[in-house]
């Protein structure tokens, strides 16, 4: 079972991970505003995550950890 963790401390809500995820389970959380004023990314369905790391590869802020 793969999963990712987005670290809100680093996430700037750029959305590059959202576009990169082949199974389209990432979204920006419009309800949350981080310390720095961003809407962070979150995984809306961990179960679908394949651990492909596409999201993490695209993340400019190293906010995503991928586990398998």
């Amino acid at each position: 079972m793969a999963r990712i963790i987005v670290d809100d401390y680093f996430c700037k809500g750029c959305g590059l991970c959202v576009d990169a995820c082949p199974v389209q389970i990432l979204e920006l959380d419009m309800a949350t505003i981080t310390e720095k004023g961003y809407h962070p990314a979150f995984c809306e369905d961990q179960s679908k995550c394949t651990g492909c790391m596409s999201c993490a590869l695209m993340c400019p802020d190293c906010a995503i950890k991928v586990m398998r």
Partner: protein
Amino acid sequence: MSAEEKVVFERPHALLPVITNYCPGCPHGIVHRLVAETIDELGIEGETVGVAPVGCAVTSVDFFGCDMIEAAHGRAPAVATAVKRVHPNNVVFAYQGDGDLASIGMAETVHAATRGENITVIFINNAIYGMTGGQMAPTSLPHQITQTSPYGRDTTTAGFPIRVSELLSSLDGVAYLERVTVDSPKNVRKAKKAIKKAFQNQIDGVGYSLIEVVSTCPTNWGLSPQDSFNWMRENMLPYYPLGVYKDVVADGFANAAEAAAARSADCPVAHPEKAGA
């Protein structure tokens, strides 16, 4: 975390856990990570000295875990040259933007390359001066609108963009030149491979290596990170085609010097070893 669960992707050690001051979606962050991963994988953080430019990456001195020097605008190649000369066993890289490397620093770039300095240069071509708020860069495309080309870059007065990888490819000191981008996971992987090779070349004493990363500047282009990549793909990649522009090892030489010697085989003074023959 379950017992079998393994972390397969996380922040590399050589990238310090600090929030960068790059804009959301700026590729500088991606490339930083690739450099840091390379440093980790080659196990050279303690031997590496990075040279930061003047440009948005000026603050990268705070982000990389290795020793760092901030160079004057455009002069990173000269600074890196000296650091490498003082500590030939260190790994020295310069990280530069297009304004820094190809405009004010053109002479330093060409000369570090022709000297065949055994260093690694990471070159971020985002077709704009990011740090200063979006002026025309030497790599801004014809008709591209910037703060200082408000009617679009007029090549009749502002001239033509410089294609750095093409330009440097004629120089004998150059070992390896590749142009990559980071707009997709696939391209990120390719970019990583190129960067790693550029570092490995240095360790192997192959010669000067430069990786040109075709990049974006969402903030100053006035586009979202995603649209920036789209614009880049549509406009920059045709102008700056990805690919390997020089690779002396692939050409069958041990290093740049060997390739240079082969090229100049007809020149007697360059080949004293032949005099006796």
